[in-house]
């Protein structure tokens, strides 16, 4: 319990750091982005919206930085992330709300599958060190060195195209309305197969390798030899003795590398024009839509923190030592 409280406190601290970072980044933007937006949308912006944007960009001349910071927190706690420039006049929170489920669905599920399958393969490769499986390791290294987005481009060129089963872009058939029905769900799944496969192929090898190395290290421990000497079955020693202990560092590694993985997978969305946060971020960057960029960064960070907390809970369940203290 103490462990979990410590971790939660740390994640709250990190969230605070990310929000503070988010507060200072737009203050580095040269010029007055709000003024240019106002002149572009003459008369279509309400006074409230202008006020909210000015707070976001720190352009309110009457406030010092500290007051601005408090004001920013006030807005944030009300769920007000400002107005999006590209989807004007939609608020950023609405835009993010529309795209978040897509990213959680695609990136979340593929990351978990990749971790589970990669770890299972790593157990096999580590236990059978020196067999033909070792020969596959350089190939997986090559696959993991390929940028995610480039693999996506190749996947589109090879598998998608006119008349192919796999669509090359989008999250669902044009003309369908997102809903949980018999038309939309199959279409969404069909559109997600190719991006998901891309993410799986390039992210899995990291897990295989780290699990293999942990298995090799654990296999030479004395308790493994004892387990063999007791005459336990090969399977039991491999899974209940070696894999069980080798798993722990892999789970904490999973938590730590989530930030990297999520960053890479967002790019797959860009290549496939998948309607998630990554694609939204890409559009926001192209249009210099600072409020949307910041909002997306904040949401991604907080999602990664929540995922980290879940990984910590998993660690707690796996490692009795953390429960005892």
């Amino acid at each position, binding site marked *: 319990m103490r462990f979990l409280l410590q971790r939660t406190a*740390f*994640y709250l*601290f*990190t969230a605070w*750091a*990310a929000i503070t*970072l988010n507060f200072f*980044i737009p203050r580095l933007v040269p010029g007055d982005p709000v003024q240019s937006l106002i002149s572009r949308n003459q008369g279509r912006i309400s006074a409230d919206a202008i006020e909210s944007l000015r707070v976001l960009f720190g352009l309110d001349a009457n406030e010092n930085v500290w007051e601005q910071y408090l004001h920013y927190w006030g807005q944030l706690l009300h769920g007000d992330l400002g107005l999006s420039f590209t989807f004007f006049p939609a608020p950023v929170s609405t835009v993010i709300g529309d795209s978040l489920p897509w990213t959680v669905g695609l990136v979340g599920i593929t990351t978990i599958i990749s971790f589970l399958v990669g770890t299972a393969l790593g157990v096999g490769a580590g236990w*059978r*060190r*020196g*067999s033909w499986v*070792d020969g596959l*390791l*350089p190939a997986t*290294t*090559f696959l*993991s*060195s*390929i*940028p995610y*987005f*480039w*693999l996506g*481009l*190749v996947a*589109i*060129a090879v598998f998608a195209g006119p008349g192919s089963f796999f669509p*090359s872009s989008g999250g669902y058939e044009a003309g369908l309305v997102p809903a949980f029905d018999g038309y939309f769900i199959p279409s969404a799944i069909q559109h997600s197969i190719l991006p998901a496969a891309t993410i799986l192929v390039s992210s899995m090898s990291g897990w295989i390798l780290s699990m293999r190395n942990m298995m*090799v*290290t654990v*296999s*030479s421990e*004395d308790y*493994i*030899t004892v387990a*063999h000497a007791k005459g336990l079955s090969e399977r039991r020693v491999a899974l209940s003795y070696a894999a069980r202990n080798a798993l722990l560092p892999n789970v904490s590694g999973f938590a*730590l590398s*989530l*930030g*990297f993985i*999520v*960053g*890479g997978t*967002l*790019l797959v969305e*860009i*290549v496939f024009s998948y309607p998630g946060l990554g694609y939204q*971020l890409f559009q926001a*960057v192209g249009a*210099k839509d*600072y409020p949307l*960029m910041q909002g*997306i*960064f904040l949401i*991604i*960070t907080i999602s*990664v*923190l929540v995922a*980290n907390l879940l990984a910590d809970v998993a660690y707690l369940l796996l490692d009795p030592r953390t429960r005892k203290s």
Partner: protein
Amino acid sequence: MTQPSAAPGRAKRRRFRFVANAKATTGLVILGIYCLFAVIGPWVAPYDPDARSGDVLQAPSLRHWFGTTHLGQDIFSQILVGARSVMVVGLVAGVLATILSILIGVTAGYIGGAADEGLSALSNVFLVIPALPLIIIVTSIVEQASDTLVALIIGCTSWAWGARVLRAQTLSLRRRDYVEAARATGERPWRIILFEILPNLTAIIASGFVGTVIFAVMSEITLAFIGISSISSWNWGTILFWAQGQQALAQGAWWWFVPAGLAIALLGTALALINFGIDEFVSPRLRSAGRTRIRTADGRSVRMRVGFTPVLAPTPRTVPVPREEVAP
């Protein structure tokens, strides 16, 4: 399994033990070729990468080895010229991140106490915050970021992993006997860190450096691909940016994006191989054992495992030949 036969041979072997690792050698050779092209690329490129010509969207041929773009630019020249930017950004960001990680990680591990708490919290925060979105946002604020700036941004955001690993290792080194002895003889803290602790961290620092270079190269190419960093200078991401923007896929122009991707993947593989070499150098267990199926004395075949010592079959092949050595 070759034993060094004579004393000079042994000395040589020890010095180049790291290079003797096949994976590391392969990686170093490939990396060397990339570095060579980073230096001479712009001079040996057959065409000006920006020069337009009448050969629009040509497939690879003898005149244009990797084909041409929609403006008739030679893609082979673009790849050669782009190598410099990729390597420079990778190395500068790698060096910067490594220096930061040594400063923060070793200090935190050696000093301990409140400074350690603060510095580890800082590196954990940087580790958990998704680096790539942060890099994208910071870079997009700057108009047309140059290579140097991109390298600085990447370096300043990617030191945390190295710092964490270095701190853990310093913690375990700090109470070793030889460090205590150095402290007892009155060596100053900076001397202990520089001459007693740092040499023992070399492998970890090297592997962290290589890892950061991989990350930096990927990030730079990503930034160029989504069009944030300057698109006026060439790197492999810029090539992919134009390929994507001009619908190279829909036009079937595979030669436009395949060479750049393979160049990136090969560089990444080379760096990863070097890292495997370092890992296996530090922890010999990780080496994939050569021949592990061995016939035992009772004629069964057994798979070798760490901790097992099978009784080998007394066949002439496996028994060492002591008699010949005794004879003369």
